[in-house]
């Protein structure tokens, strides 16, 4: 580095005198100064749009504030109210927890199964990979949520198909409290394409020699999958799990569209984020909504932390 930064012969003459600063020091100082210029937009964003509001939201969570009236400090009232005096909050927690705990494992299982199948040197891999990925790309759009509303409606596609099979007395899935969340879970599982692509990339890294050696030793396909593929893939499984979990906790659009913004029927699709939205922008209970946001942050942190903590028992990295 130091050798390269010395000026080539001829250029030193052209440099105007700059006081006592040696050339190298001056240039380094200039580079340091330049670094802050490069960082400037991000720093403004970090403090103005991320950290600042984050601290503001922590403060707001201890206040009662409705945008128009006066802001009054209420201590831990919002947090206490959440757990003792708000059944809708508790039901939103339950709905979201069910959604995360059911849809994420199902989605990852599908993704892994399909990735393993596709990895068997199937012809047209690129085509299938694209076809399975398409739902992931579109899954969070309003258009797909609308489609879901029709498909699982009373006279929707699902009931037409089941009716053709001779079934009668079919429910309107979207409007039945026992089934409505299920349709949202199906929608999330349907978008298994992006974890599948990550699994496919992971499968490429598993050395073929391992499979060959296992075959020589008489392992069948299931044995090879369980003893080689699964352990070798655990880092990728872990990565996908954390990523999809964080995503699922924050799902919003689908539940908003499918329930028309209400979280109904009977709050059965009231996602945590949807309830937060209602509290903040329908009831204008800004303090309460901020407290909810911080509770969500803590919960996501705990789940991610738990994943990291348990990972040492089931995730195998190279050379272990």
């Amino acid at each position: 580095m130091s050798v390269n930064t010395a000026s080539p012969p001829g250029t030193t003459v052209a440099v105007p005198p700059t006081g006592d600063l040696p050339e190298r020091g001056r240039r380094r100082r200039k580079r340091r100064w330049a670094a802050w210029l490069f960082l400037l937009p991000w720093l403004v964003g970090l403090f103005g749009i991320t950290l600042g509001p984050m601290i503001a939201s922590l403060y707001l969570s201890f206040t009662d504030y409705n945008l128009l009236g006066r802001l009054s400090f209420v201590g831990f009232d919002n947090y206490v109210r959440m757990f003792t005096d708000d059944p809708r909050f508790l039901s939103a927690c339950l709905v979201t927890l069910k959604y995360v705990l059911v849809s994420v494992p199902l989605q990852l299982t599908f993704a892994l199964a399909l990735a393993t199948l596709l990895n068997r040197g199937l012809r047209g891999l690129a085509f299938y990979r694209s076809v399975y990925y398409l739902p992931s790309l579109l899954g969070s759009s309003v258009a797909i949520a609308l489609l879901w509303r029709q498909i699982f409606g009373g006279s929707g596609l699902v009931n037409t198909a089941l009716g053709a099979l001779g079934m009668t007395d079919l429910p309107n899935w979207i409007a039945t409290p026992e089934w409505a969340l299920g349709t949202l879970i199906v929608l999330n599982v349907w978008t298994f394409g992006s974890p599948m692509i990550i699994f496919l990339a992971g499968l490429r890294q598993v050395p073929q020699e391992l499979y060959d050696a296992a075959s020589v030793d008489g392992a069948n396909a299931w044995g090879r999958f369980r003893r080689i593929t699964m352990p070798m893939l655990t880092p990728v499984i872990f990565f996908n799990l954390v990523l999809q979990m964080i995503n699922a906790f924050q799902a919003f659009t689908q539940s908003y569209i499918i329930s028309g913004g209400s979280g109904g029927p009977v709050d059965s699709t009231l996602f945590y984020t949807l309830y937060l939205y209602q509290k903040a922008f329908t009831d204008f209970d800004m303090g309460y909504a901020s407290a909810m946001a911080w509770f969500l942050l803590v919960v996501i942190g705990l789940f991610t932390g738990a994943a990291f903590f348990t990972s040492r028992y089931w995730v195998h990295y190279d050379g272990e």
Partner: protein
Amino acid sequence: MVYPLLWMVASAFKPESDIFSDPGLWPATFTTENFTQGWDALGIPFSTFFLNSFVIAAISVLGNLLSCSLAAYAFARLDFRFKKTLFAAMLATLMLPFHVTLVPQYILFQSIDWTNTYFPLVVPKFLAVDAFFIFLMVQFMRGLPRTLDDAATVDGCGPFGVFWRIILPLMRPALAVAAIFTFIWTWNDFLGPLLYISDRALYTAPIALNAFLDSTGASSWGPMFAMSILSILPLFLVFLFAQKHLINGIATTGLK
């Protein structure tokens, strides 16, 4: 897997009565009436909403590429105080659920009269708030040989010259991934416009669809499907023409 999608496309060309009775993928009676009917259903033609979405997406792409690559260059190539701390702070913001900043951001943007404008949607992009792309670009830049920078420095390039003439042209693959995902995310964004845009003429395609649903109940599926199809068409085109970048982006970084 894609049957529901194909069925939606087919239904958009079926008369209303056939949508519920006919699960087939080929319309028995072919009609484009759904499109003409849906196009003007909100009183303002859908072209306005598509144009709005495009404007926001294009500005967002520009903002993200510019601000994220600048910050990434500083982290990957330059020395400054608190570099490690700031890098860690950047990574920490990746994990942050955006709901934590949602309410104060709304109060902030409202207090400076930015509601019902596109500023709350695009200005953050110029401030590198999607830190994920900074991370992506730092990783990419670390793979570029430093000898190129040094050679350019010897030839008299300052840090900005190195960034503009050497690094940026070499980063095209990473820039492409960032551009594609920014486009997809802003195009699909529902909560942002829902919060900030109340004037119908400023609606983006997703909230226009939502308004469509609100105004008709769930009674006119044909026109709604027609507009839904059009609203995801740009995503589909991105998917067709930039598949390689998309797949690479997901495989290496886990973007959705």
